[in-house]
C-alpha cells in the first residue's frame, strides 16, 4: 500500500473508503436486482476494481469530467453521482439519471461531470479528446478522464484518439483498467504487448503503470497526470493493474477463469487492503470502518427503495427527446 504523497486528512481517507464501499454494495445489490428481474439487459459489476475509479476521481475537481464504459457504475459513484438516481436509472424509472432511457450502460450526468457511459468498447475515447478541447476553447481548465479496459486497448478508435489528444495536447487522462480479461479472453491472448502503458510511447506521452488495487497509489498517479493535463502538457496513459472479482456481467453465466487466479485476487481485494492500511498506519478505529461500510450499505439500500418507488416511464413518452427542441419540431409543421 502506497503512503499518501500529499497530506491527506483522515476524513479524506475515510471518504475514499466510503466511496469504495458504496460501489461494492451498489454492485452487489444490482446483481441481486438483476436476478430479481428488476434490471433488464445486463449489469457489469465493478467489484474488485473500486480503487481505480475512486483513486482517479479523488484527483479530480467537481468541474472535471469523466467518460465511462459498460462497466460504469464505479466511475459514477466515484465521480459523486447520486446513488438514488443511478439506481432508479438501472431499474428503468423516471427518476433515473436518464429517465430510464439509458439503463446501466448509459448513465450520463453532466451536472456531476459525467459525460456518459458508453456500451461501445473504447467508444468514448475520442469523445474525451473533443470534450477536453472544447472545454479549453471555452476558457475552462477542466480535465477529462477516460476510463477503458484492457480489451478496449486494441480498438482502433483508441489509437486515433490517443494520437489526436497528443497532437492537440488535449487535457485528457487515459485510464486503462487492466483487469486481465475481456469477457472470456485473457489480455495475454488479445494484446500484443505486456504492459498496455508501453503503448503511450508510441504517442509521445507518458505511460504509467500503477497497482490498481491501491487506492492511494492510484490517486497519486492520477493527480500527477491531471496536473499535467491541466497545465496544457497533454495526455497521460495510466495502466491500472487490477482484476474483476465477479463475472463479466450478471447475465454471463460462464466464467472460464482459473479459480486459483480468482482466489489470489480476492486476497488483494482493494477494500480489504485499504481497510488494513487505515486501521494500521493511518490509525483509524476498526469500529469506524464498520460504520463506514454500514453507511454505504444504508445509502445503497435507500437508493434501492427510492428507485423502486419511482414511477415507470409511460409508453407514450418513448417518442420524446429523440431531438432537442428545434424550429422544425413545431407541432404540425412536419408529419
Amino acid at each position: 500500500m502506497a503512503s499518501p504523497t500529499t497530506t491527506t486528512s483522515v476524513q479524506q481517507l475515510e471518504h475514499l473508503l466510503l466511496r469504495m464501499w458504496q460501489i461494492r454494495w451498489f454492485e452487489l445489490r444490482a446483481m441481486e436486482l438483476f436476478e430479481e428481474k428488476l434490471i433488464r439487459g445486463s449489469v457489469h459489476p465493478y467489484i474488485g476494481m473500486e480503487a481505480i475509479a475512486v483513486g482517479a476521481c479523488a484527483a479530480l475537481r467537481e468541474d472535471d469530467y469523466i467518460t465511462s464504459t459498460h462497466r460504469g457504475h464505479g466511475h459514477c459513484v466515484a465521480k459523486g453521482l447520486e446513488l438514488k438516481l443511478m439506481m432508479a436509472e438501472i431499474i428503468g424509472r423516471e427518476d433515473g439519471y436518464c429517465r430510464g432511457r439509458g439503463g446501466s450502460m448509459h448513465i450520463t450526468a453532466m451536472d456531476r461531470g459525467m459525460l456518459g457511459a458508453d456500451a461501445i468498447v473504447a467508444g468514448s475515447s475520442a469523445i474525451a479528446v473533443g470534450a477536453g478541447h472544447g472545454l479549453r476553447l471555452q476558457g475552462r481548465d477542466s480535465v477529462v478522464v477516460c476510463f477503458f479496459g484492457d480489451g478496449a486497448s486494441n480498438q482502433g478508435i483508441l489509437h486515433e484518439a490517443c494520437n489526436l489528444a497528443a497532437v492537440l495536447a488535449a487535457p485528457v487522462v487515459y485510464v486503462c483498467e487492466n483487469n486481465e480479461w475481456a469477457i472470456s479472453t485473457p489480455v495475454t491472448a488479445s494484446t500484443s504487448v505486456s504492459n498496455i502503458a508501453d503503448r503511450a510511447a508510441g504517442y509521445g506521452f507518458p505511460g504509467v503503470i500503477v497497482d490498481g488495487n491501491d487506492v492511494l497509489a492510484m490517486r497519486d498517479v492520477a493527480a500527477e497526470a491531471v496536473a499535467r493535463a491541466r497545465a496544457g502538457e497533454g495526455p497521460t496513459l495510466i495502466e491500472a493493474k487490477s482484476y474483476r472479482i465477479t463475472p463479466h456481467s450478471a447475465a454471463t453465466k460462464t466464467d472460464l477463469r482459473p479459480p486459483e487466479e480468482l482466489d489470489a485476487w480476492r486476497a488483494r481485494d482493494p477494500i480489504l487492503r485499504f481497510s488494513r492500511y487505515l486501521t494500521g498506519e493511518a490509525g483509524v478505529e476498526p469500529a469506524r470502518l464498520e460504520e463506514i461500510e454500514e453507511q454505504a450499505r444504508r445509502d445503497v439500500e435507500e437508493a434501492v427503495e427510492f428507485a423502486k418507488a419511482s414511477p415507470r416511464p409511460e409508453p407514450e413518452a418513448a417518442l420524446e427527446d429523440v431531438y432537442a427542441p428545434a424550429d422544425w419540431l413545431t407541432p404540425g409543421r412536419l408529419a
Partner: protein
Amino acid sequence: MSGVGSTEPHKSAGAGSAGAGVGAVRELTMSEALNEALHEEMERDPTVFVVGEDIAAMGGLFQVTSGLLDRFGPQRVIDAPISEAAQAGAGVGAALVGCRPVVELQIADFVSLVMDQVVNHAGKWRYMSGGRVTVPFVLRGAVSSGIGMAAQHSQTLEAWFVHAPGLVVIMPSTPYDAKGLLKSAIRDDNPVVFLEKRLLYSRRGPVPDTDYVVPIGVAEIKQEGSHVTFVSYAQGVHLGLQAARQLAREGIEVEVVDLRTLKPLDIQTVVASVSKTGHLVVATEAARAGSMASELVARVCDVAFDALRAAPVRVTAKDTPMPYAAPLERAVLPQVEDVVDAVNQVLGRVPVGR
C-alpha cells in the same frame, strides 16, 4: 403449412436442398442449428474458419461457435482482440486468397464499426477488380433488441447493407432456415451479411440431420392466406404468424411471406402473393425511415402497383434510439397488435386514423 415458428422441413428441403433426401429430424434451437452448420461446413472445407470475440474457449456469447475450438483448433477458431474492423478486414483478406472466413460480431450494432471493411472493401473488391477476384466472406451478428440492452445494443441495421452493392443479406426466422442458409452463405462466393435475432436463438424447430442447404434468394410462404400478404423476415415472421392466428379467428386469412434473403430479393414470390391478395403489409423490427419495409413498398409499387387495392402498410420500430425501460422498449418495437392493426387498416376494417 405448420404453425408458428416452425417450417415443414421437407418442403423447404425439397425446394432447395443440395443434400440427398431427408434424414432424422430433431427439434433444435436456432443457436444449435447454426452451430451444426458451422461444424459441418468446417468439416467439409478446411478453408472455412471462424473469427470473433469470445468464440473459441467460450463458444460465443450465445454458444453458436460452441465446440469448434476443440474440434478445429486455434488456427481456425480465433478469439480475436476487440477490434471489429480488423476482424472484418482480415476476413476480406483471407477470402481473397481462397479461404471462407466467417466473422462473428458479438452484437449486430457493431456493424457500425465495420461498414468500411464490409461495404467499401468486401462488397466492392470483385467489381473493382473487373470480376477477377471473389470474396467468399460471411459476417454474422446478433440482433439484440427486446431484452433491455438499450440503444447501442438493439439495432436492426440490415437496411444499410441492402443499400450497399455487392453484398448478400440474410436474416433467418427458423432453426431450419438458419442452418440451411448459413451453409449456403458459407458456400457462396459472395460476401454475405447474416443477421441473427438473439431472441430467436433459443426458439426450437425441426432440423434434419442431413447436409441440406436453403437456397439464397428464395422467399418462403410460411403460411398461406388469401386476404392480405404479410411480408417480413426474422422476428417479424413470428409477429406475422401470431397476428395471422388471431385474425384467422375473425375469418381473415393472412399469407405470411418470409423473405429469408433480403438481398437478392425474391420479388416474384412477394408479387405473386400480392397479385392474389391485393393487400400488402410489410414488417421489420428496424427503425422506420429508410428501412427494408420502405424498400419493399417501393419494389412492389414498381411491378405490381395495379394489384394493390389499398395503400400498403409498414409495421416497423419507431424512429427512436432503443430505450432501456421495458414499457418504452415495448412501445418502440413492433408488436403483434401492430400487425393486427395494420392488416385491419389495409383491409379497411378500421378507420385509417393514423
